[in-house]
């Protein structure tokens, strides 16, 4: 259950941005979350509310964009999205693929704010 510490990092990072913009009011935080990031979305959303309390982010929403996992298929020589992180193989040719090109993201993308 490390989602609370991740939520606190998100709040801290967003607060810094808000302060740099003259204590802007933050309405929403946009996050990109890869399926291989190791973060459980539901746990992060509930931790976020707790982490926001008493900060500049109080009352703001956390909007999460799920990023599916893409592997690079060594046979097809291109990136392909996979359906399950339990099987890292090319959905077209079935080759096992160890190179993950997308899906580990844990990124603060943007803030919706009023200055």
């Amino acid at each position: 259950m490390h989602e609370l510490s991740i939520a606190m990092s998100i709040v801290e990072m967003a607060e810094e941005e808000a302060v740099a913009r003259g204590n802007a009011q933050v309405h929403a935080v946009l996050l990109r979350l890869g399926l291989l990031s190791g973060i459980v979305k539901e746990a992060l959303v509930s931790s976020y509310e707790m982490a926001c309390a008493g900060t500049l982010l109080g009352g703001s929403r956390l909007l999460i964009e799920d990023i599916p996992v893409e592997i690079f298929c060594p046979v097809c020589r291109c990136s392909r999205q996979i359906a399950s992180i339990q099987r890292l193989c090319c959905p077209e040719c079935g080759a096992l693929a160890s190179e993950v090109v997308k899906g580990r993201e844990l990124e603060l993308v943007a803030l919706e704010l009023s200055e």
Partner: protein
Amino acid sequence: MTAAPRLVEVRKNILKHNDLVAHELREHFRESGVYVVSLVSSPGSGKTAFLEKTLTCLRSRSRVAALVGDLATENDAARLARSQAPVKQIITGTVCHLDAQMVKTALDNWNVGPLDYLFIENVGNLVCPSSYDLGENLRLVLLSVTEGEDKPLKYPTIFNSADVAIITKTDLAAAVEFDPRTAEANIQSVCPGMHTLQLSSKTGAGMTEFLALLDSHRNHR
């Protein structure tokens, strides 16, 4: 009057601070010439027994030390101290994983320069440690035969974050009807190409292969 809300692009990695400290640690380890190996697994999979055996085997020919993460007790450090290698405990309290800053703090005033190998035993947890780079050179994930062959499918992220999978407690394999081929197939499914080793810290079976693998990774870093 407050202006209408607008969208401001930020684009920052949430784990930026951890990754930065991990990068500094990795540089520090490289400059010091120490090879750093971390261990992750579920609680009770035999990390401490495996590490005690490894430290004991290595001590006659290499300079080794260990950092051990635990939620509450210093029992693991006390067990590892039997190997007579320098051991330091990191008590994480309620935190379920080690992060790079904890490693950095634990290494303050500890000169790793004379070491060949430093081992970092993470808190027993197959979920949270996967997100945190500790600056290690090699990450081992342990899976004991008593946990069942499907652990990799249940925790694909941590297996995918590791470099080598070690199947432990093989002396108990027959008793629990562990099927190594199924385990291997599951490991390959979540992390294609992963090197897997089977060993028993109790009997020592597989330790020679493991020590050879360590040396080969260290020489090829």
